[in-house]
């Protein structure tokens, strides 16, 4: 697909590449940072609760969570609605303006035109920091390599319909 200059500015290089190569209907998963316009009244921040006012830490934390959820819903409700209207599935965005968005590449590309979409990245792998002990490192990598190899081979075996006598 063709990406416009303004869309490129909002997408990380991996997402740019994925959008360029994708056909419009291909399903992609992206991480989007949402935010209201700079001078929006929606940027108003609620006063933070004082921990001393609560019986225990759990009650204090619940008040913080509620406050945050109200703010996010107020700030980003319309933007999220716009994204859903484009048949995109949204995950997250309850206490943080970062959402996981899944849907057709064409719609993800179009959503980059929305002013409320600040930045978007392609979903990618996150890994454990391997302990640096040589023995542990070798053990972990060899174990993982074996599992990955096995999974790769399994994925290449075609699905075979069971014979009638195999059915339960």
């Amino acid at each position: 697909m063709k990406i416009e200059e303004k869309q490129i500015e909002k997408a990380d290089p991996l997402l740019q590449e994925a959008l360029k190569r994708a056909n419009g209907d291909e399903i992609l998963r992206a991480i989007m940072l949402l935010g209201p316009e700079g001078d929006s009244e929606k940027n108003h921040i609620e006063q933070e609760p004082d921990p001393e006012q609560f019986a225990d830490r759990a009650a204090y934390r619940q008040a913080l969570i509620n406050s945050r959820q109200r703010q996010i819903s107020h700030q980003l409700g319309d933007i999220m609605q716009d994204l859903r209207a484009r048949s995109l599935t949204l995950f997250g965005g309850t206490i943080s303006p970062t959402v996981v968005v899944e849907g057709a590449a064409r719609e993800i590309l179009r959503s980059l035109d929305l002013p409320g979409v600040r930045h978007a990245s392609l979903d990618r792998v996150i890994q454990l920091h391997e302990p640096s002990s040589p023995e542990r490192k070798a053990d972990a990598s060899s174990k993982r390599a074996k599992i990955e190899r096995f999974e790769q081979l399994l994925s290449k075996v075609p699905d075979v319909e069971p014979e009638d006598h195999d059915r339960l």
Partner: protein
Amino acid sequence: LEEWIREIIMGIYIIRPKETLATRAVGLISKQFAPERRQEQIAEVVSLRNEDPIYDDLTRWLAESPKDVNPLTHEPDTSVTGTKVVEMPDEEAERMRREMPDVLVLRDQPIELIRPARATAISKEKVTASDLWHLKAIGLEGARKRGFKGSGKGVTVAVLDTGIDSSHPELDGKVDEAYTFDVTKWQARPISPSRDTDGHGTHVAGLICGKKVGIAPGTKVINAVMIPKGRGNLSDFILAIEWAGRQENVQIVNMSAGIPGYLPEMLTSVANLLSVGVLPVFATGNEGRNKTRSPGNYAEPISIGATNKKNRVASFSSGGVIVADNHRYEVPDLVAPGEGVYSSVIGGGYEAWDGTSMATPVVSGVAALILEKYPKIRVTDLVEELLTTCKDLKQNTDRQGKGLVQVKAAA
């Protein structure tokens, strides 16, 4: 299926004459260890090989072989060793062995590190006082001798890791809940019993709240399997952080995973953890100087480096200067014991592991002790308490941050 069958019947083979003129005549070649002589030495080896009849036969055999014998290397790639790497069916390799007895035909295989002897020496059924050097380094042993009774009671740490083996005696009764994450349904699914997919999370949890090895034995942990078998996705991280942030009983999030370099994608999620009163404690990575990983290299969480028994920053501990959004700062924020640290391992027993992953739960444990003493402080004040009570190790700030974490604020 075709590709699968091909992988099974085709093999990669390492091929070279068992003995070459070059190895037989090795004494004739200059062995002077001088860079300026290197090209001359290579030319001597190549020249000797070109006169070698076995090598000549091998080259001819490969040239006349059937189509499915496919050399993967070319002469300039292996000019020093003269080794050829060839993909071919196993029966062709057998034929080569029969027809060319002077040629070594070796099927390629995985190469593994030679395990040092200490791999077995460091596995133990029981730990002794001297194994628990990490408790002494952070001032906990001394504080306990002086009557400190803090245990982190009433505090819950979410461990975003590979899982936790709750059957380990160190962790008996310590794992409150356990979850796996499904991004496609945006769900945290409870699992029972709590288990570990790799072993890493069990070692980490032991250091937070283990009966003997733990910093805060009264603290509870939640097993959040965010990186099953050591691998997850950015979306798993976003889900796990959102989930942890919404659990009112969670006060600290402990994590030792990341993506190399500085990637801003996870920044707002981490910042929002702080805004809902959760302290993120993240490892910086195990790649040494000037190499860090996100999210451990963000300014928002407490970023952790590792020290050794001599109270020096471990060479593998990641750190450096980060420039992002017109800000310049250094990571880690502080360091904690992380080299040769004993903790619980999957299935029982103890092992000493190295890594900033081991230092991170030590800091989470100290933070739990502080929270037990001051349950009503703001998370920003908790950060201050951790940073202002460190012991200065007199090393550069891009290695040690504020210094070695201490229990002073809690004791």
